């Protein structure tokens, strides 16, 4: 128990030090992006890792959060946190509204419906010019402020993002350890059997959609102030696909896979920048190799290695005795 707290303290100290170790604002920007992506991927992992539902429309929920938050701040001069809360709530409402008709859908049909949802949101943003200003997007979104302290640079934003990710991770861990989490896993393994065991499958499936929408909505609400812009270009099908890739590459069966996936793919795409036009070709190849050779994602590989290492070290000790 003590060791666990020491580890947590060490992580906290390390995270607090990150903005002072990373000197380039650009790198800081990337790290903050990883934090926002982690939030979205966490939601996706709860959705697909626990109930086996796949969403390729997560950018749609993100857009709902981003535009709601930005519009409330810009047009009604609402303060930051109530606007964020409203964005998250509206995303949840969309998640419910979408999840209820979608609970009947399976496999490719569900994927297609989520794609449709994401595209409809984006097209409404492009076309509803009087409110959303169309393709130009909303600009000049104010930065959040706490008791006079404005989150005006990447360094300060980092602490905000880290706090949110920590809350998100804690909530997801709590959820997975709870009765609800176990019910969700039962649904993933066999939803007919789960239903027979008295798990209200449809309620949980819809709830998982709402939860994933909340995570995406929160990330979206943060994205506006973070870049000071909210435009339809930031919430496309390709973005949704990217988040799904993060979830699968990291490993979608647990909470940590979300962090690993968001970090791995964001950093990979930055590392490949020197390759210029071949960059995304290499990225695609690595993506394919990962899903072919690591069916459980990067965390699956790491967990497997740790298990093997533990078994191995125990074996060595056994020989000595």
């Amino acid at each position, binding site marked *: 128990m003590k060791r666990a707290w020491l580890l947590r303290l060490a992580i906290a100290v390390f995270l607090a030090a990150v903005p002072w170790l990373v000197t380039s604002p650009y790198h800081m920007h990337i790290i903050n992006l990883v934090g926002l992506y982690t939030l979205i991927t966490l939601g996706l992992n709860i959705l*697909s890792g626990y109930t086996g539902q*796949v969403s390729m429309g997560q950018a749609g929920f993100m857009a709902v959060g981003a535009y709601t938050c930005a519009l409330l701040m810009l047009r009604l001069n609402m303060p930051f946190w109530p606007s964020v809360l409203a964005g998250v709530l509206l995303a949840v409402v969309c998640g419910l509204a979408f999840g209820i*008709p979608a609970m*009947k*859908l*399976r*496999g*490719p*049909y569900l*994927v*297609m*419906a989520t*794609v*449709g*949802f994401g*595209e*409809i949101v984006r*097209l*409404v943003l*492009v*076309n509803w010019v009087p409110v959303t200003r169309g393709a130009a997007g909303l600009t000049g979104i104010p930065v959040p402020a706490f008791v006079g302290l404005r989150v005006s640079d990447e360094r300060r934003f980092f602490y905000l993002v880290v706090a949110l990710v920590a809350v998100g991770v804690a909530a997801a861990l709590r959820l997975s350890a709870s009765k609800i989490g176990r019910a969700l896993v039962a649904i993933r393994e066999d939803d007919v059997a789960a239903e027979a065991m008295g798990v209200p499958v449809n309620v949980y499936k819809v709830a998982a959609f709402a939860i994933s929408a909340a995570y995406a909505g929160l990330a979206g609400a943060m994205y506006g102030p973070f870049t000071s812009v909210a435009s339809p270009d930031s919430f496309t*099908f*390709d973005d949704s*696909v990217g988040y*799904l*890739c993060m979830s*699968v*590459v990291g490993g*979608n069966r647990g909470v940590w896979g979300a962090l690993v996936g968001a970090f791995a793919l964001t950093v990979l795409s930055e590392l490949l920048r020197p390759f210029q*036009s*071949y*960059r*995304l*070709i290499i*990225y*695609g*190849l690595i*993506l*394919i190799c990962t*899903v*072919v050779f690591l*069916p459980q994602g990067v965390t699956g590989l790491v967990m497997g290695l740790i298990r093997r290492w533990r078994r191995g070290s125990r074996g060595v000790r056994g020989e000595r005795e």
Partner: protein
Amino acid sequence: MQYVLNGLPMGAIYALVALGYSLIYAAAGVLNWAQGDMVMLGAYLGFTLYQVVRVNFPVAMLLAMGGIALVGVLIERGVLRPLRRRNSPPINVVIATLGVAIICRNAALAIWGPDAQPFPPPLGSRTVEVGGLRLVPQDMLIVALGVLIMLMLQYFLRYTREGKALRAVAQDRMAASLMGVHAERSDAVAFAASAALGAAAGALVAPLFFVTFSMGAAIGLKGFVAAVVGGLGNIPGAIAGGFALGVIEAAASGLISSGYRDAIAFAVLILILWLKPSGLLSREARQKV
């Protein structure tokens, strides 16, 4: 009536793409998210043969279909087969084909550059008026060749050895394997055929738009909508879904607003999925492939 007529060419294109999705889904049980990029590659290859090498249009189209069919086989061998042999979860197959799409798109960008290429319509662009209806030669060519290709596909599936094997695998993979059908070979055939269908769609649609490296995404998505509306894995359904989508789109852009055209297509999709969760022509017709 004019809306129906306007919708038919794009409907034929969507139907060809939808057939590609359905063939692979029926035979191999997977979704190929790179199908739209087969359309894009077909358009580029057709463009290169027609405009740079300067062969005539039908030859260019056939060569493009053959060339992209090879790409399809390559995808099956290089990506799908290793995944199947490892028993990977379906989501991994989805991500892998998305990876293929990324590679195709950026390879095209590297080869042909970022500029949109104009593709002159092989029959000229003068409109003909028949009984108060405006007809565009390229539109008629698309519908005619599109239907011809669909008939050829039907012939292939019904009367050739490979086609029959593919149908057997689509109906029951295990039983077909036990009866001596080489299921993996059928997967390759399905990928080749659907890539060729995509390439045909690409070569036909290119004169309507410019050829760009990113054109596959939108057409691929619409073709997928058509396939799902008709019931995935269902061949007549894919054709019906494609034409229905084309006409709905033409009517929506004419009657409501062209900006919301795509949104309407997706709204129709979600509505259909809501009412009938496995597509309009599913279950009963599904076994026929």
